[in-house]
């Protein structure tokens, strides 16, 4: 079973980038909501009292604190949509791309202790784990292994 990412990579930069907000709320529903610019973006304010680059807004009366985030270096942000999950040959089509988005927390200044920030560390850890090991380093380590065994015997 496989899912094809059915879009032409060369088309990626053709569309205008999408505007994304990462909201600290569980919204039960998908699809068009409203004019986000008019009813949400219009109310975004800079809040230097919380720190450099911190923004404020509100959702249904709940205070939001946010900041502009970039997609991690070496990555592209893509929004993909499944055509029909019941198909045998599943396909994901490209809805749009983005390089930045606004990260929002519920009433908490965005900081390094946010789960999302800590998750990004995993990208670097995964890279370190995927680093190939050279033949020489491996032989060296095995020699040390043998020596240690002899010493302990």
């Amino acid at each position, binding site marked *: *079973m*496989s*899912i*094809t*990412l059915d879009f*032409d*990579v*060369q088309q990626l930069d053709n569309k205008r980038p*999408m505007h*994304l*907000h*990462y*909201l*600290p*709320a*569980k*919204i*039960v*529903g*998908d*699809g*068009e*909501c409203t004019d*986000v610019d008019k009813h*949400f973006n219009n109310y975004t304010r800079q809040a230097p009292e919380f720190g450099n680059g911190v923004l404020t807004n509100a959702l249904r009366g709940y205070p939001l604190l946010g900041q502009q985030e970039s997609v*991690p270096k070496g*990555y*592209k*942000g*893509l*929004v*993909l*949509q*499944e*055509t*029909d999950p019941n198909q045998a040959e599943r396909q994901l089509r490209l*809805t*749009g791309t983005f390089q930045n988005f606004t990260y929002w927390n519920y009433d908490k200044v965005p*900081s*390094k*202790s946010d*789960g*999302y*920030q800590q*998750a990004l*560390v*995993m*990208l*670097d*850890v*995964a890279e*370190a*784990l*995927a680093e*190939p*090991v050279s*033949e020489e380093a*491996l032989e060296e*380590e*095995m020699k040390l292994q043998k020596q240690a065994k002899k010493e302990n015997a």
Partner: protein
Amino acid sequence: MNKKATRSTKPKPDPDAAPQKQAVCAVKKVFFIADNLLQAEDGADRMRLERFYHPGKGQPAWFITHHDCQIMEMLEYGEPRRSWLLNNEVCSNGRTYMTTPLDATLLALHHLRKHCSQRAMSLDSISVDASDASTNRLLTKFVTAAGLKCVADVKASGDLVFYKYNPQRTLAWLTLKTRGVVAVLKAKQVHCGLGAKSQNYVRSEKLVSENDVNEMDYLRMACDYVGRYLDADLHEELTRYLQIPSEIQALVEEKSSAQKRKSQQGQPSANSKKIKLANGEDAASQLRNSSLLDSDDGKDSITSPPTPAPLKERTMTAKEKALAKGAKGSKSIASFFKAK
């Protein structure tokens, strides 16, 4: 009204609801895809999401592949109560799907250990009994010869190549990988100790030198991270090979070193090396005395005396002490159940 969000629900369409117009409501997902998967050489070739057996999870997991040679892991980052706003649409799926680099050799390890431990086999014959084509596809397309060489003995006979799993080589290879992870954890200043530490506070210079950044904590976390890709028993083997004491042992060690630090307060940092050595000895002898290590000498024979030594006469192991401590304040279970 808002539904209560639970850990494992995805919003499912109500089967009795009137059919919704499908147009914009198909579920969207937000992805971070690595640039090197997006190099357009051949416009017709598409990236695919495929399932391969994931040794750490014990079941197939999703991976992203391209050009029948590139493979990356598909990680799903999710927090409770998150959604995306995409231009003028809401997206209930608040997760972020990220492609992360992966050494496919880690996936191959499971199959090598399972089939090639006793004798050398070719890649095609390993996957002969597999339930689907994914094993063969993984081994022939995405695992590299260089990678296999690190964990197996390679024998060539004419055109055919045979591989036999080599446990010592694998442990050495995993050790080098683990050290790479330790380096990154240190560079990123990831807190690996046993307590919780906020990332928001700036640590003073003085404290940094006193709280000897515990090498073993980094090693343990790195080993556990590598272990997420390994069969459970191989992870245990690696933990033992790297001589990582269990967390209870570390707790006991930390307590004894904290007491030592208190008494050494005010002394110049030149003594810090001595303190570390003293800790090291304590840890080693404690480890030996506890029953956590398998003793290699035959003195600790498997046959046990007919009657067990009463607890008061034996010294308790760290585990037993910890459990006994946990028992304080609980009622006695014998008071609930009467002897038959």
